[in-house]
């Protein structure tokens, strides 16, 4: 369960960041200014959120003159989609342990 996807979960756990990412997914590339206009928080706050999203590999940036444009990388969500697969393996091994314990409790 631990691994590189920890960061992905933590990054998307913040509703404002999730909102920004969602918007980039739906509306395509946007400037920091355009994102700030609708995010309901200050531009420095939006920039900080974008920095964290970038670190998690969820967005890419592109500098064009004085503006930085951001776009989503939906492929980065693959580990999140893989969550159930990982948990299934985890619970299967726990059930095996539980089975052993129940046998021991029998004695």
């Amino acid at each position, binding site marked *: 369960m631990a691994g590189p996807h920890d960061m992905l979960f933590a990054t998307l756990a913040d509703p404002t960041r999730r909102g920004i990412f*969602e918007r980039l*997914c739906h509306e395509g590339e946007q400037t920091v200014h355009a994102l700030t206009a609708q995010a309901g928080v200050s531009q420095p706050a939006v920039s900080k959120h974008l920095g964290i999203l970038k670190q998690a590999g969820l967005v890419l940036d592109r500098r064009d003159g004085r503006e930085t444009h951001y776009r989503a990388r939906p492929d980065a969500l*693959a580990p999140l989609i893989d969550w*159930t697969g990982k948990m*299934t393996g985890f619970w299967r091994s726990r059930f095996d342990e539980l089975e052993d*314990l129940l046998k021991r409790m*029998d004695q």
Partner: protein
Amino acid sequence: MTEISTDTRSVIMEREFPHPPERIWRALTQPQLIQEWLMKNDFQLLIGHPFELRGDWGSVACKVLEIDPNRTLVYSWEANGLESVVTWTLVPLATGTSLRMEQSGFHADHEQFYQGAKAGWPRFFASLEQVLGRLN
């Protein structure tokens, strides 16, 4: 890219054991027994009791949500910023017990268990499905 369907958002495991529900209930609810098959913990069989499961890789923050002795145990399970709900169901059989575990991550019907901002997850996934659907 894999499509996110409603089904892939919960993990279900079911197994029959040749033991009575009461014994399985003890394994699910006594800290020293939980430690033997799951993780180190400070579990208490009390509604609303927050507890922690500690593994080698980190810890899981939990809270007891529902107790129906020898039948149902529900607790929240939060790890890596992702909240889910684990539901244990014990059904007595002539030969023992059927034990079912369901861990639901993002079901809208579990929103009552999420608090505040966390309720955003199901909506996020619903919206994400549309995006990923377009990519396919």
